[in-house]
């Protein structure tokens, strides 16, 4: 028997005034998998993720997360999921420990002090725990956001540009931690990114969006084979430019 999808979007549409930000998107994400959502600016990735999180109500269509319809039944599942996004930040004046304490209590995390220490060790934040979040570097702040997104050991993790604005070394380090978490927890991860190398390294499946629609959806290996390309970046350019890049290359 096939397990029920962790996320299922059915003909999802979001219209802002006259703009169709998401235009009839359907997909299902298997539990325990890691999927990349690729697309240029304005492709509809963030709106799709926001609808999955229940922060935006779809204009039509439906999205279910861990069996609950969003946003109507969101309180059934919010405790079991978490997210990281560049569109939100942690309160700057609070120390890392204070922020993690507040979010740990919101998610009703048992043995919270131990969990914070555990995350601080895993994310190399132990020496910074009592420093105000506003006084951290961009890389350190990303690690704190990641710690917040893992505070409740979520079954479903939604990540919107998790390594944006990080130097390559820190970004690579973060990817390693995410990959390890997913394997250890057998968590489902949906990752929106502009970073093709990141998606190629982490994801078992890639959904490519353009102008609110899904343009392609497959494993990285099959996408590379189908487009006759060596990297996902080249595939992405083919899709983004409607095949012009491929023609130009030939």
């Amino acid at each position, binding site marked *: 028997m096939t397990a029920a999808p962790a996320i299922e979007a059915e003909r999802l549409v*979001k219209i*802002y005034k006259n703009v169709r930000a998401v235009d009839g998107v359907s997909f299902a994400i298997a539990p325990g998998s890691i999927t990349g959502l690729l697309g240029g600016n304005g492709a509809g990735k*963030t*709106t799709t993720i*926001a609808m999955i*999180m*229940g*922060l*935006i*109500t779809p204009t039509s269509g439906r999205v279910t997360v861990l069996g609950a319809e969003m*946003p109507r*039944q969101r*309180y*059934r599942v*919010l*405790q079991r999921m*978490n*997210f990281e*996004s560049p*569109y*939100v*930040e*942690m*309160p*700057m*004046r*609070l*120390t890392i420990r*204070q922020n993690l*304490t*507040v*979010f*740990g*209590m*919101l*998610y*009703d995390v048992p043995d919270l002090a131990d969990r914070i220490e555990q995350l601080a060790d895993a994310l190399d934040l132990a020496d910074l725990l009592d420093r*105000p979040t506003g006084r951290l570097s961009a890389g350190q702040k990303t690690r704190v956001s990641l710690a*917040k997104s893992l505070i409740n050991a979520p079954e479903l993790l939604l990540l919107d540009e998790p390594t944006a604005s990080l130097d390559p070394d820190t970004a690579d380090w973060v990817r390693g931690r995410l990959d390890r978490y997913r394997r250890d927890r057998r968590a489902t991860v949906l990752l929106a990114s502009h970073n093709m190398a990141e998606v190629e390294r982490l994801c078992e499946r890639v959904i490519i969006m353009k102008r609110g629609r899904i343009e392609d959806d497959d494993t990285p290996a099959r996408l590379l084979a189908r487009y006759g390309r060596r990297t996902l970046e080249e595939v992405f350019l083919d899709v983004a430019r409607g095949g012009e890049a491929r023609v130009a290359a030939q």
Partner: protein
Amino acid sequence: MTTRAESVFAFSPRRVAAMILRYWYLLRSSWPRLVELVYWPTVQMITWGFLQFYVMQNAGFFARAAGTFIGAVLLWDILFRGQLGFSVSFLEEMWSRNIGNLMMSPLRPFEFVIALMVMSVVRLLIGVIPVTLLAFVFFGFNLYGLGLALVAFFLNLMLTSWAVGIFVSGLVLRNGLGAENFAWSIMFVFMPLTCVYYPVTTLPVWLQPLAWALPPTYVFEGMRALLIEHSFHANLMIEAVGLNVLFFAAGMLGFLKLLQSARRHGSLMQTGE
């Protein structure tokens, strides 16, 4: 099937405590925030205190009505600062771009509102208690001399301030920080209409029904009756409670509708202007 713990009405004291702790950490970490809480109430009380001192020396009626100005200032501050305390705590989430984190967490809207109500009381007490002591030292006005009436006044004013604060928070949630000015200015609409410094009969006859539709009017009338006639009109307080229940329900309903609208319009992801 949705169990009780999973429903929108499930209440968790730990989640409320988390939010109170969050605001407490913030207040504790910032002395300008603490000073600001005391600064304006003090300036206002001293200004009005001297004005009252002056008119008492020149008018027989005001000599009898000793304390009405300072009493009005202090009660107005409870109303104004109560709403501001609520709204500023909410705005802290918008300023720090943390609202998305909260809306995505299991925190229920009414748990959030309860935490904001508690913080409005905490902020108010930090700001107003030192001022009431100063009023006693400088002008001999003992607010606590109002006794149990003060409790009735306080509860009614707080209920109104929360109702307005809840509605304003909904406006900001729906419209972003462009609506922030409502948080600072909306209560001033109440100032002339609730007759803070003069009796309702001062207003034109056609405006008086509107004044009586606002709960704080009953409190300020009650305060003047207590200080001038030395009589406590319990009926005024009961009527104020009745109106406050309606105001609070309308504020909460407005907040939930605006939150729903914010989800439709994607405002929770765009918390700027």
